[in-house]
């Protein structure tokens, strides 16, 4: 167990370093930060001096080494755009993204799993077909179109929900949460929906497929032969056994959610990491992009770890075996 976790953590460091390297390799190509940092009237000489001072003329590897070296001692450097310390910037943005992602995920689970079970148990029903098709349409519209559409429907036309931002937030230390005010929740609904649609469809179809398979296994047939109540059959026995693959995919997807929140956040002006990242790209804010990527990588690693631990929790077979 301890060994397992340790192994994962070691791998995770590798993954993060690799990502940092990739990220860094790309920065030089995104554009020239200098022309973004200086005004139109700045002379080329002044620009050149700034470039020198920022160490942008050093060889790529030197820059990378400096970047990682500092990061290892917890110094994430400063943003070219706002001159702020990046660690601070990210801390102020991470909660927004995490809350958005989590709620989106919850929506997708709370709706997706029952829907999946239903459609699995009545594969030929009209309702099933309706659900399947409509969700398909849902995932076939580009996220940004859905987002804008929702904004104008619920924000402008009906005026029920806010169109941007996080609404009322509550501060807990560095964690700024919008989960504790009605206002915050109202602001959360649309972005979470937009972000959740894809997950929802995926979860539903996954649960459905797995359910249909499990329902044909011997132990379900045996349980049926023992005349167990149907709900116990469906939910305790069948659904339980679909969870392993479902969790795997959900885990992967949560990473995807965080990465993909970029679009949603930019549409809803949601002050999360994704938005920060877009701004940084537009501004060639190299250090911010670098740190962002490393953080994302870290989340992925973390999620993978959690998923594996969940396996152990769910499936006794994976736990260390006692002698039979």
């Amino acid at each position, binding site marked *: *167990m*301890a*060994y*397992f976790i*340790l192994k994962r953590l070691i791998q995770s460091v590798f993954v993060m370093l690799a990502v940092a390297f990739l990220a860094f390799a790309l920065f030089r190509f995104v554009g020239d930060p200098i022309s973004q940092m200086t005004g139109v009237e700045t002379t080329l000489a002044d620009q050149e001096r700034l470039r020198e001072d920022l160490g942008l003329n050093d060889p790529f590897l030197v820059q990378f080494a400096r970047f990682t070296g500092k990061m290892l001692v917890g110094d994430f450097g400063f943003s070219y755009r706002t001159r702020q310390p990046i660690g601070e910037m990210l801390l102020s943005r991470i909660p927004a993204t995490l809350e958005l992602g989590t709620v989106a995920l919850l929506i997708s689970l709370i709706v997706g799993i029952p829907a999946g079970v239903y459609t699995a148990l009545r594969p030929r029903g009209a309702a099933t077909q309706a659900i399947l098709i409509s969700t398909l349409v849902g995932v076939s519209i580009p996220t940004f179109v859905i987002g804008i559409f929702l904004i104008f429907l619920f924000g402008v036309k009906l005026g029920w929900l806010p169109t941007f931002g996080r609404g009322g937030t509550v501060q807990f230390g560095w964690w700024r949460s919008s989960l504790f005010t009605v206002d915050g929740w109202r602001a959360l609904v649309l972005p979470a929906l937009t972000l959740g649609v894809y997950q929802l469809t995926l979860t539903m179809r996954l649960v459905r497929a797995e359910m249909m398979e499990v329902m044909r*296994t*011997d*132990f379900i*047939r*045996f*349980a*049926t*032969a*023992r*005349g*167990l*109540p*149907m709900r*116990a059959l469906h939910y*305790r*026995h069948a659904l*339980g*056994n679909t969870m392993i693959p479902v969790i795997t995919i959900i885990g992967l997807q949560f990473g995807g959610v965080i990465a993909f929140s970029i679009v949603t956040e930019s549409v809803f002006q949601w002050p999360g990491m994704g938005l920060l990242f877009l701004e940084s790209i537009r501004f060639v804010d190299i250090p911010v992009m670098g740190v962002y990527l490393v953080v994302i990588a870290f989340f992925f690693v973390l999620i993978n770890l959690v998923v594996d631990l969940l396996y152990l929790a*769910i*499936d*006794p*077979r994976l736990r*260390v*075996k*006692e002698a*039979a």
Partner: protein
Amino acid sequence: MLVVENLTVEFPGRHGVFTAVEGVSMTVAPGEIHGLVGESGAGKSTIGAAVIGLLQAPGRIAAGSLRLGETDLRALTPAEAHRIRGKRISMIFQDPQTSLNPLMTIEDQLIETILAHEDIGGAAARARALDLLGEIGIENAAARIGAYPHQFSGGMRQRVVIALALCTNPELIIADEPTTALDVAVQSQVLALLRRLADTRGIGFILITHDIGVIAEITDRVTVLRGGRVMEAGATAQVLGAPTHPYTRALMAAVPRIDRKLERFLLPAVEGDLPETPEAADEAEYAANWLLSGLRHADSGPVLEISGLSVRFKGTRTSLFHAPEPFAALSDIALTVQPGSVLGVVGESGSGKSTLARAIVGLVNPAAGAMRFAGEGLPYGRARARSHPVRRAIQMVFQDPYSSLNSRHRIGEILAEPLKLYGIERDPAQRRRIAGAMLALVGLAPDAIDRYPHQFSGGQRQRIAVARALLARPSFLICDEPTSALDVSIQAQVLNLLKDLQARFGLTILFISHNLAVVRQMADNIVVLKSGRIVEAGPSEAFFASPQHPYSVELLSLTPSLALLDGAA
């Protein structure tokens, strides 16, 4: 108690309606074990499913009546039918590995089942569960009840399954191949348990099996099925003792006897096989000559010598500090195989039979020991060059004919592969010619060459597998449980084939099986494996006459003897 009258079950399908069971009638009395015997496709499982009302869609009962006591099972609404399940009729499935929910402790599964049918407290339910486990022979049930299925061995698991079927005190239990997946030792115990339950509790059983041995051992009455129809039915002793129907006779003739070695099984022709035409004979002849021309007999000296062979698998690492315990699959194996002889390797599952074969062909890396083939030292698995001549000289026939042929390749390609790979035959046309002939030799029609594996029955596939092996012109053939996945009559065919080939080409064979009876039919010498060690070795006949090692003795005693069949065949 259970009365089935001319039951007919149909499966409407793409190619019209398929009738799985037709006009079958049978009865089961309390405390009686009624055996349904037949080969795959005989419809025996379908009958069981029909009785308990769990026919797989789109199957439906087209005609006939099913009555359990006063209840007309066909008249029940789905809800009522579901209430009857478990309460009055229960079922035992073939594979204990898959028939328990892996994520729940057996305690939960038992209690859940009991409470589903009886309104007693959880404590009472638990008490009953404990008694039950005790009754079906699980030591210190109190401790084990909290365990998960995977923590039980196969036999124990099957007992748990039985306990689950029992815990609601049903009148009728349908046991579908309850012992097929188990070792002989366990098998006999489970069978004994069923018998006891029938006698003590007066439960009626429908015992579905393909194994006449099992039938002979415990059933009171038997119904012989073929293609969904009843061939013959009656009291077991009477039916097996004096079979009237030719199919029953054929079936029994095909059963390998542990008490004697037959030269050949006589059996009914199976459709799809090669009719005895002169052309076919010529073809077979051609293949035979081709083989003979290529077979170099290992001149004098043993073909295979193994000494001190050990194989270890390293366990999964779970701790940072302790290296995992290696698990010894084989330890200190020594054996020799003389040219033209058949060495039988017997043992229960997990005894290391297959590991031995895999070590010889180089699929696993031995930890220690020496292997010499035809006098030459044999490199270990990973060290063995892909081009090493022994890769041609040693060929293997696998247990499962369904997975040993690449289902995406035509038979022609599959057979041509060795010829091509070993550079035995350069010209494609010629390769095809030889492959075709070889098919004839193993008794398959020539048109087989352009078909795909899934278009053949298990037995035919196994013969194709043999053909593929022969096409390498091997001097040594390893057969790993070649027939254990097959119906008896098919098994008989394959065994015949192997016997013929062996006799004709003096093949040297390593024959692995868990089934002593089968081994006896093939082997000149015997090696008995137990948990990775050789416990006894010697000439076959001597072994069967008077086994030395207690384990061998036990094995022999447990294998169902067909003494009461002696009237027949």
